[in-house]
């Protein structure tokens, strides 16, 4: 890992202090060493100022430690290796530095020392001698590890007086009086002020300043000082990420980065969808590329232990991402895991335990209300007995009022005394010859109503334990961790567990050769509920309330809707574990070939194996489930090998020119296989028997595979002139096996430039501006996420769809072939061009950071699988390069670092805000063509069409409810059936095209799932040992399509209804939200319409954490370096007008093509509210 951050590079101006050719300024030598060895060397200028050293031999193969010893010792200086690997130059311990004062023209400048103009150092102290003066002393430590901080500058505010701490962090100083304010400052740490008062001894903790401009970011095959970055890169600290208790770093990323939208799936082990700067592809996939320790992966974050993450960077624009070329059009997330560092070995234990509770529950009808609605419907549709005028119903009798039955047979009810429900006539065996004749399956009706929601929901625990050991010396560095994460779902019988082990090591085996590895093994165990429509959570409010859980025989009661009820479904799924084991990591070697030139080679591996055993016991109470136990075992194997070679060169040319460049090659190979086998007829149903061997009949067996390759060459040049002008150029060429030879290669260039205005003379005098940089970038990236064999026409054999018993046999079938895929040998890369304009400002002595970015992201040549007309038959059209989509947006990030109460209270406020406007610019077949989302029980409710954003809602407009027959008569014919739909109490559909008839051509765009803007607000504060973190996140201005209303608000299927249906139209209740209850009209009236559109804005209190770090003095007694405990609430507050379970339905993880279906609430696994306690222990 080559570092090129030059904290020591402040001395760019010659100070007119010529030195002999044989001698150099120590400062310059240190700068050279820093560059040469890739090591940060930190020093206060005044310590080294004026010290001349003889030339040192660069040809001798000494390590930097030896050189420094040689250089520094004669001058009474020494160095110390810091935890982050940098070297701090300090005065000799035996020769404490005298107090110093600063020149008056720079009063109170606190950071960074090294950037002070060299003339600002005055060697001879001028102590103030006021009569009230008295000495104080103290120690300065680092808050992150408790170590004493040497070299910290302490000044008395408003004066030029001050001192620095010694090697242990101790200091002493004479102050003019109790009103004096001490300012503690140190490079890389946040400055701190403290009033002296009556205190004579001070213990001061400085907090690392992660937001500092000196931050290093990983930008793809290399690192760069953040201040020199010319593209759009966002960084999230591990601390912020890990503040959210989640199994997945993607979930932790939500709301943290401007321009990054995250969709959560609330189930344990649920995945996430990450979208960076809008949506750039329609069918080609929109997941970003993840680079973990240099190894690419397209997902599967569940197997990555979030505690191992050290840094996370998001490359948002093309000028930074294009170094990843063909796979970078959706942005790149770069994750670096924790590495060992030279220094003391450290053991860290982090743990939390949390309790998750469901938040919102749907309001549904009770048994009586349900029966009344059934009766109301019968009367409204005229389904009444001609003799009595009353409805007749198998369950609810034939009276004027519905009769709640005492018992439920599988179909219909019965009263006490009915011979069918005599206990002796009960059977649970549908194969009983007398079944349905004299033997019946029956249950006692729940007359008050079963609360199905609360039956399947629970308060569930989650916990995480993480133990890590880090340490190392100059030759060997290691970081080893093990973790356990376990989460039960708030939906019963769902759970996720992860066990992971990581070993990251690096060895300096020769002065110029380093080898190392980063390797993680993870094992996860998931019991998942179903997702999508008709999952168990949704069934919970679709089940009629009169159904009990168990029947009179103690077996599961049968479903009135002919399905199993939700509790049964979950219970029967409880032992269906899906196991994944995954090895992820790389081994690498780095060789410094000559000065400034480093060769690196890395071999990455990502190998995962998944196995799911899905046992479905016989379900005698349900018609819709198998009557024989069945077992399906599915497995897949995925191997990804990445071999990367880079040659990197860094050179500082003179004092003005800074050049770094690298070239590289990368080869990626992916192999995939899967199979699935199912068998039936299991003699027993206990888990020990749930193996394929135990079944007697093979039902089916299938399997497939793929093999894809990618090869790339790439290079990048960064050039800086006097820190003022920054230029960067990237070129990558990729070749992919997914494309035919002619179109195999894609070229992806990028350029960017930065102009540091704060270095210009016209801004130099503006004291409140610390740093001001304008950035501009342009680049192209690609996308190849199509069927790997898109170029080939293939034929497949399938026992279901292409085989036929042509010989007339009853129980065998003759296999045949069908076209499996039609190939497109002319497909090529999706292309994307992005322009980015950015501004980075640091103001008020580092207190305020602002980053603004505006971008235009144009995708073209989109690989679309054009909807085939059915006349194509099975010759489904392959993906072709037609289509474009544009995202324009704006990201803003504002951070304020403040302090109060004599610096004892420190706080940070961070606000990120982003907006994008998405529009489809080109589709096949011209402006009228469109692509739909997925059909549910309704046909697709979204359309992706030119001139509209992707996944816009499409349907009818409802203009209220007809109040009179006259009004209905005056309206155009609805649905071709005036007798049914042009009636008082019916929905009034708008004649959008004005043709005098309401038909399908009256559908129109009725909403957009894209928010006007999204935002995140981070507040954190520290006071003495206490710390507080508060995090809000929200979206505003989006619509949601509440598909759940199709089931709960209309007479579709026989499940329960929402209490909204009580506000249906009647002649007495004209101001109703729903039309008159009528099952005949329900199908028509529940077509996609504005009735389902709701506002989706929400503000969510995502995280509130209060921590306390025990005093070092206390914990040191038990040999503990640091102990922090905390309590925390997650999703503790939600403000929304959305009536569904959770407004976070956007981007829920439905798999491929979900971007054409965003904002449709198919029934989410709701997010839990979580209360957590945790601790972090270092020793």
């Amino acid at each position, binding site marked *: 890992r080559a570092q090129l951050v030059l904290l020591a590079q402040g001395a760019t101006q010659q100070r007119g202090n010529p030195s002999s050719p044989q001698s150099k300024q120590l400062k310059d030598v240190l700068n050279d060493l820093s560059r040469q060895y890739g090591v940060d060397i930190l020093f206060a200028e005044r310590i080294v100022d004026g010290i001349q050293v003889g030339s040192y031999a660069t040809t001798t193969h000494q390590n930097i430690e030896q050189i420094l010893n040689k250089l520094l010792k004669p001058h009474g200086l020494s160095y110390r290796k810091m935890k982050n690997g940098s070297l701090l130059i300090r005065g000799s311990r035996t020769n404490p530095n005298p107090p110093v004062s600063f020149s008056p023209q720079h009063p109170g400048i606190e950071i960074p020392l090294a950037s002070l103009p060299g003339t600002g150092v005055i060697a001879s102290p001028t102590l103030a001698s006021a009569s009230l003066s008295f000495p104080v002393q103290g120690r300065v430590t680092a808050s992150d590890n408790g170590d004493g901080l040497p070299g910290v500058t302490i000044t008395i505010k408003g004066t030029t007086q001050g001192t620095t701490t010694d090697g242990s962090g101790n200091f002493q100083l004479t102050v003019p009086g109790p009103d004096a304010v001490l300012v503690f400052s140190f490079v890389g740490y946040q400055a701190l002020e403290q009033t002296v008062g009556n205190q004579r001894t001070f213990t001061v903790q400085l907090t690392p300043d992660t937001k500092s401009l000196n931050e290093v970011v990983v930008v793809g095959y290399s690192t760069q000082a953040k201040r020199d970055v010319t593209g759009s890169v966002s960084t999230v600290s591990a601390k912020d990420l890990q503040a959210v208790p989640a199994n997945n770093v993607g979930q932790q990323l939500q709301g943290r980065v401007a321009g990054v939208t995250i969709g959560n799936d609330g189930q344990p082990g649920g995945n996430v969808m990450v979208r960076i700067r809008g949506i750039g592809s329609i069918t080609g996939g929109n997941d970003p590329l993840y680079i973990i320790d240099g190894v690419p992966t397209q997902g599967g974050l569940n197997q990555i232990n979030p505690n191992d993450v050290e840094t996370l960077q998001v490359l948002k624009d093309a000028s930074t991402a294009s170094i990843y070329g063909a796979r970078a059009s959706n942005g790149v997330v770069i994750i670096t895991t924790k590495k060992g560092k030279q220094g003391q070995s450290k053991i860290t234990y982090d743990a939390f335990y949390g309790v998750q509770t469901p938040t919102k529950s749907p309001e549904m009808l009770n048994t009586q209300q349900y029966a009344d609605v059934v009766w109301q419907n019968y009367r409204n549709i005229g389904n*009444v007995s001609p003799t009595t005028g009353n409805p007749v119903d198998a369950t609810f009798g034939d009276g004027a009022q519905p009769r709640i039955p005492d018992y439920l047979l599988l179909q219909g009810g019965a009263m006490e005394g009915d011979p069918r429900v005599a206990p002796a006539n009960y059977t649970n065996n549908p194969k009983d010859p007398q079944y349905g004749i004299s033997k019946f399956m029956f249950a006692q009706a729940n007359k008050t109503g079963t609360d199905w929601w609360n039956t399947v929901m629970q308060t569930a625990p989650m916990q995480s334990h993480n133990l890590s050991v880090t340490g190392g010396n100059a030759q060997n560095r290691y970081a080893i961790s093990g973790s356990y994460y376990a989460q039960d779902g708030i939906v019963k019988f769902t759970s996720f567990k992860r066990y992971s082990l990581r070993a990251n090591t690096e060895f300096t085996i020769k002065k110029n050769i380093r080898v190392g590895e980063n390797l993680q093994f993870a094992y996860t165990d998931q019991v998942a509920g179903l997702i999508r*429509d008709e999952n168990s959570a949704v069934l919970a409010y679709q089940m009629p309330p009169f159904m009990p859980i168990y029947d009179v025989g103690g077996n599961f009661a049968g479903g009135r809707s002919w399905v199993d009820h939700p509790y049964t479904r979950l219970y029967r799924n409880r032992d269906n574990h899906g196991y994944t084991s995954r090895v992820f990591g790389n081994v690498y070697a780095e060789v410094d070939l000559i000065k400034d030139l480093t060769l690196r080679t890395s071999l990455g591996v990502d190998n995962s194996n998944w196995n799911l055993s899905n046992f479905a016991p016989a379900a005698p109470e349900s018609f*819709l489930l198998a009557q*024989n136990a069945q077992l399906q075992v599915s497995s897949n194997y995925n191997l990804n090998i990445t071999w990367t070679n880079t040659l990197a060169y860094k050179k500082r040319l003179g004092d003005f020119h800074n050049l770094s460049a690298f070239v590289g090659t990368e080869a990626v190979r992916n192999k995939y296989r899967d199979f699935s086998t199912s068998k039936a007829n299991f003699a027993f149903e206990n888990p020990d028997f749930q193996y394929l061997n135990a079944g007697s009949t093979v039902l089916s067996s299938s399997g497939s595979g793929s093999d894809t390759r990618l090869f790339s060459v790439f290079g990048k040049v960064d050039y800086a002139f006097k820190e003022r002008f920054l230029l960067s150029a990237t070129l990558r060429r990729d070749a992919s096996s997914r494309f035919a030879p002619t179109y195999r290669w894609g070229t992806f260039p990028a350029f960017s430039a930065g102009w540091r205005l704060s270095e210009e003379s016209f801004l130099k005098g503006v004291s409140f501006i610390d740093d001001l940089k304008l950035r501009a970038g342009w680049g192209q990236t690609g996308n190849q996420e199509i069927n790997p064999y898109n170029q080939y026409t293939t034929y497949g054999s399938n026992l*279901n769809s292409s085989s*036929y018993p042509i010989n007339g046999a009853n129980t065998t079938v003759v296999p045949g072939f*069908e076209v499996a*895929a039609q190939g497109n040998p002319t497909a090529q890369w999706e292309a994307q061009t992005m322009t980015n304009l950015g501004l980075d400002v640091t103001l008020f002595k580092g207190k305020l950071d602002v980053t603004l970015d505006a971008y235009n992201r144009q995708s073209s040549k989109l690989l679309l699988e054009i909807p085939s007309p*059915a006349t194509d038959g099975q010759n489904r059209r392959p993906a072709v390069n037609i289509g474009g989509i544009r995202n324009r947006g704006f990201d803003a990030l504002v951070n304020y670092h403040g302090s109060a109460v004599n610096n004892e209270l420190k706080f940070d406020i961070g606000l990120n805000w982003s907006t994008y406007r998405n529009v489809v610019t080109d589709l096949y077949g011209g402006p009228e063509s469109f692509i739909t989302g997925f059909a549910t029980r309704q046909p697709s409710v979204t359309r992706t069409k030119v001139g509209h954003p992707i996944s816009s809602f499409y349907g009818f407009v409802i203009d209220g409810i007809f109040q009179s027959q006259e009004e209905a008569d005056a309206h155009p014919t609805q649905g071709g059936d005036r007798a049914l739909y042009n009636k008082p109490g019916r929905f009034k559909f708008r004649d959008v095209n004005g043709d005098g008839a309401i038909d399908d051509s009256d559908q129109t765009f009725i909403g957009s799932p894209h928010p006007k803007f999204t935002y995140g607000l981070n507040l954190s504060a520290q006071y003495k040992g206490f710390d507080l973190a508060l995090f809000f996140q929200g979206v505003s201005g989006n619509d949601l399509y509440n598909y759940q209303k199709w089931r709960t608000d209309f007479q579709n299927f026989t499940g329960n209804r929402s209490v909204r249906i009580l506000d249906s139209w009647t002649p007495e209740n004209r101001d109703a939200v729903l039309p008159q209850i009528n099952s005949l009209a329900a199908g028509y009236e529940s077509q996609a319409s504005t009735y389902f559109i709701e506002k989706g804005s929400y503000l969510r209190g995502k995280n509130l954490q209060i921590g306390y770090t025990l005093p070092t003095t206390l914990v040191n007694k038990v040999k503990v370096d640091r102990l922090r405990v905390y309590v925390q609430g997650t999703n503790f507050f939600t403000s929304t007008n959305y009536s569904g379970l959770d407004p976070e339905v956007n981007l829920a993880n439905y798999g491929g093509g979900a971007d054409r279906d965003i904002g449709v609430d198919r029934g989410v696994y709701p997010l839990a509210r979580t209360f957590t306690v945790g601790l972090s222990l270092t020793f």
Partner: protein
Amino acid sequence: CTDNFYQTPPLGVASESQLLTRDGINSLLIGAYSLLDGVGASSDGWLGRNEGRASAASNWLIGDVASDDAYKGSTQTDLADANAFERNNVLPSNNFVPDKWIALYDGVSRSNDVLRAVAKTTGLDEATATRFRAEARFLRGFYMFELRKIYYRVPIIDETMFDTKVPNDKEAWPFIEADFQFAQENLPATQTDVGRGNSWAAKAFLAKTYLFQNKFAEARPLLEDLIANGVTPNGLKYGLNDCYYDNFQISTKNSKESIFAVQSSVNDGSGSSANANYGEHLNFPLVGPGECCGFFQPTQNLVNAFKTDANGLPLLDTFNQSDLKNDDGLRSTDPFTPDETTPLDPRLDHTVGRRGIPYLNWGLHGGDNWTNPAGDAGPYSPKKRSYRKEERGTLSTTVGWAMGPNANNYTVIRFADILLWAAECEVEVGSLAKAQEYVNLVRNRAKNCVVKELDASGNETNQPAANYQIKPYTVAWTSKEVARKAVRFERRLELAMEGHRFYDLVRWGIADTVLNTYFAAEKTKRPYLNGASFTKGKSEYLPIPLTEIVNSSIGGQNTLIQNPGY
């Protein structure tokens, strides 16, 4: 990296060149046959929407529920999209409209794949190549025939088109005739596999194609040839089975009466019921075979049609003036005795499951419990696609949730069809006496096997289960009108619940009068039919699926136009 690095051919599938052999083409042909059942076509949608309910080979929904023979069944809230078919008011956006279209065009496409493969294959002997071509064109003719019959304005897709976005502005009948003509000229009379089309089946379809255009003169000689000389693919001389019920039994499938049938297999290693009559999976009583789901219930009107007069002849004009006694509104526990006196055509109880009459050998139909106690579509169950008790689990499915699918064939054309078509031709362009002769052949056969009563222990007795009376017409028909009415009525009785009724009404041009008369009476028994009506000039055909019109767009212009009235 060399080019070899990128050469990664698809795994587990074949390339076209691998299939350009005799065996390869045969397997493509099997693939083309496999869509005859309407299940297994490529379809969009993550719910796996096309489960064959609306695309079943038997056309139960679009051909019988849409007619006066059957209700959709179950409850109005169950599969509500299907209600519109019963009301003859189907919107182009209805979820079920595309299903049949997709299945049939997939069949056309697979047939064309065979033709393309034959053209590309070298070294195939001419006889084999011709047979392949003829079988492919036979199948394409079948799929196109169904399309024309159901959707009217249908684009014609042949093997030369890769881009199938072509307009639907041409009459498809000549194309269909040409395919069947080629097939009848080039197919062998017998085949190694009983499921394949032979020259006689092609001739029968050609005759059917003529009939649908009222080309009686062209159809008549073909039908006479079929009656005189036709043989099944396995060499059986065409004829009526002695027993009417043998047309609906697994053990007697592919009989001499089976001109062309969709073959079914079950428990065949496919892991599903896709090769069984899966499109029918909802159409079984809740007790006995299937256990699901009470769809496709015969109408009261149909049941009434089976009443006969004292001479054993149908009540052509008065059949619906009174209802045959039934258990509508009764619980299974309420006592009920079926009608024992009204003279009935014995085919009633081979067609309709009704309370108190044996349901095959599953015991007496139990009424309410068997249909759907929550249902609102009357007391009857369908019967012709069922299976016998001893076949359960061997010849009926053991897989999935719907337990009804079984190895029973759907016979697309059976010999009785041919006879009755011939009768129609005679009425229109021939001799009324000859027509009556054909009709009487069918009626005489119907006498042979009747449903028998069960004794106390559930065993079959020799006693008929009802007062069955059926006799041939003995009085000569006096006019074309009388003869036409009798022939058409016979077709209804003989082929009830076999998916033909709606299309017969349409081709006879009487769908509006028959169905609107039917609705007027039936809505008093089935209140949910209130407001239902057949619109002449519109309801004869389903609309072109909305998604297809939308997908047909080229440069913003829809290639397909909608059917009249929609």
